[in-house]
């Protein structure tokens, strides 16, 4: 496997800023129904007015706690859920309103997904051949059976499995191997974008490291763009180029990886980072000051007024209870949604 490192690659990454995926004011509300006639009595605002851009070849990490809407956003992005409002541009084309048939023709094969639970995302009654054959046949990539088999074996080797795995069933594999099969399925159609939703969360640490390395290798080899959704901040830090922090359906902070982890600006990002337990490896490593957040995540069906974080924020001002701050650029490429900060051009 070729690992594309060195100065050249770094330079390329910085000059090439082609936007491959762009979302504008994306909203996904789930209706809450009650009563005999199932009247809608309210909405869960899972994704609430999010705009962002994803550059070609980068990894955008999305972090947040459970219920913050990160998975819903991933699924809405590829129209597994229909967006309530807003537009999604893929390579400049608005796909948010495309009918399913056209979506399948132009778009489905270019963007793929890897799921969290390798035990639930593979059909236990189908051999690996059948599982990997589906996407290839759906898009009629080859003519002959041998060509299909050839491609499946090639895919298995790319993800580090033996080609003899082709006739086996999912239960014969360990969690890490199953996740490799899930990855093989995702790259089968040579997609441009892969959405990885908690792709390594169910794995043991030693296996998790293998899969993270595999994902990085594949990205270099096939120029993949990743949207990496996870609750695990250290994993996200390891794999991402840019990171978005979500809270109750909104993006609170969006920045280049090192800016976010070395100098988080939003009080929520600061608390989130300080909460991660660390191994004490260094001799006199400074203990970070821990910011303990009070209380729990409010329900997304009745989010707090104003800034959704004000109920748990240590720096909340009266103004925060009334107006939700917008995501604005505070430093170069560093966006924060907080009243504590003024925009670059304000």
């Amino acid at each position, binding site marked *: 496997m070729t690992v594309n490192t060195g100065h050249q690659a770094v330079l390329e990454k910085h000059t090439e800023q082609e936007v491959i995926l762009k979302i504008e004011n994306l909203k996904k509300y789930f209706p809450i129904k009650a009563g005999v006639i199932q009247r809608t009595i309210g909405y869960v605002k899972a994704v609430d007015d999010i705009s962002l851009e994803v550059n070609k070849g980068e990894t955008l990490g999305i972090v947040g*706690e*459970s219920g913050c809407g990160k998975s819903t956003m991933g699924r809405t992005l590829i129209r597994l859920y229909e967006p309530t409002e807003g537009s999604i541009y893929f390579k400049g084309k608005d796909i948010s309103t495309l009918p399913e048939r056209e979506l399948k023709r132009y778009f489905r094969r270019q963007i793929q997904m890897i799921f969290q639970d390798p035990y639930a995302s593979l059909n236990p009654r189908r051999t690996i051949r059948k599982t990997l054959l589906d996407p290839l046949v759906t898009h009629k990539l080859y003519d002959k059976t041998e060509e299909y088999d050839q491609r499946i074996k090639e895919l298995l080797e790319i993800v580090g499995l033996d080609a003899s795995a082709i006739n086996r069933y999912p239960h014969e594999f*360990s*969690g*890490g*191997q199953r996740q490799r099969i899930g990855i093989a399925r995702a790259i089968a159609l040579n997609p441009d974008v892969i959405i990885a939703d908690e792709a390594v969360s169910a794995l*043991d*640490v*030693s*296996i*998790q*490291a*293998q899969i*993270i*390395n595999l994902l*990085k290798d594949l990205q270099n080899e096939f120029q993949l763009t990743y949207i990496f959704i996870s*609750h695990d*901040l*250290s*994993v996200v*830090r*390891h794999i991402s180029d840019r990171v978005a922090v979500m809270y109750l359906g909104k993006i609170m902070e969006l920045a280049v990886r090192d800016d976010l*982890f070395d100098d988080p600006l939003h009080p929520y990002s600061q*608390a*989130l*980072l*300080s*909460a*991660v*337990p*660390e*191994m*004490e*490896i*260094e*001799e006199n490593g400074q203990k970070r000051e*821990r910011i*303990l*957040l009070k209380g*729990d*995540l409010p329900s997304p069906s009745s989010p707090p007024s104003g800034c959704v974080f004000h109920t748990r924020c240590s720096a909340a001002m009266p103004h925060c209870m009334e107006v939700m701050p917008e995501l604005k650029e505070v430093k170069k490429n560093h966006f924060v949604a907080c009243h504590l900060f003024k925009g670059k051009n304000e």
Partner: protein
Amino acid sequence: MENLLTIKNLKTGFPSKKNTTIAVDGLDLHIKAGESIALVGESGCGKSMTSFSIMRLLPPPGEISDGEILFEGRELLKLSENEMCKVRGKEISMIFQEPMTSLNPVLTIGEQIIEVIQYHQGLNRQLAREKSMEMLKLVGFSRVEEILKEYPHRLSGGMRQRVVIAIAMSCNPKLIIADEPTTALDVTIQAQILELMRNIRRKFNTSILLITHDLGVVSELADRVVVMYAGQVVEEANVRDIFRKPLHPYTEGLIHSVPSIRGEINRLYSIPGNVSSSNKIHSGCKFAPRCPKAFSRCFVEKPRLAEVEELHTARCFLYE
């Protein structure tokens, strides 16, 4: 200081018609009063089965085939079921990973705490109720009267785990076994629960046996770390020593596989292969097939757990 809990050569397995699946393979462990020990390992290494063995709550057909478990000098494995019931919850209590499954969904929080206190302390209902409110205050609830009347599903994950801790602490146990107590929780809630457990430990001098796969959580709560692989202890040391100077190649690999939240970002180290099942018959060291430092002896002989440095033991031929 005398040991509160001593486990000697514990062997636990799951017999079936054909063969026995070994979960714990000759484990030795001791916990002193007030000490916090972390049992670390990946899934299937036998860490949870160790805790179930101590409580004698192994899921059937699991059984303890050998060894002894001494708690304050008493042999737990020889106690009758009735006597064991008096130990569980009163002297040793347990906190599980998923609080929703360890609380009864059709009983209110109050009923569940009061029951434990009445059973173990023989208090009348009114006194038990007062005691349970005191416990809920201890774990950080403010509106305790209301919480007593709530059902578990009305609470969030973090609050449920607080309730579980309140129940576990209600009889002032000498040892708490916490099996992945924060794994199902978000990081900010995890930080709250870890803080709570530290406070409780300080206040009551309770010993903790923490079972976890998360090395970060280990360094937050533990004094001493025991690393398990395939049913055996492979290394044991103080929490500082284990992270700064791991001896066993498995511990070293485990520590290096964890992506860190600070510092340089390098390619992650990964241990090749998969966690081998403890069932397979190995002629040599169980970790040898995955070990980067394995040599011919490792595949033939079984290494012993030996003290390499003071209070730092490892099961590896590199140090013999």
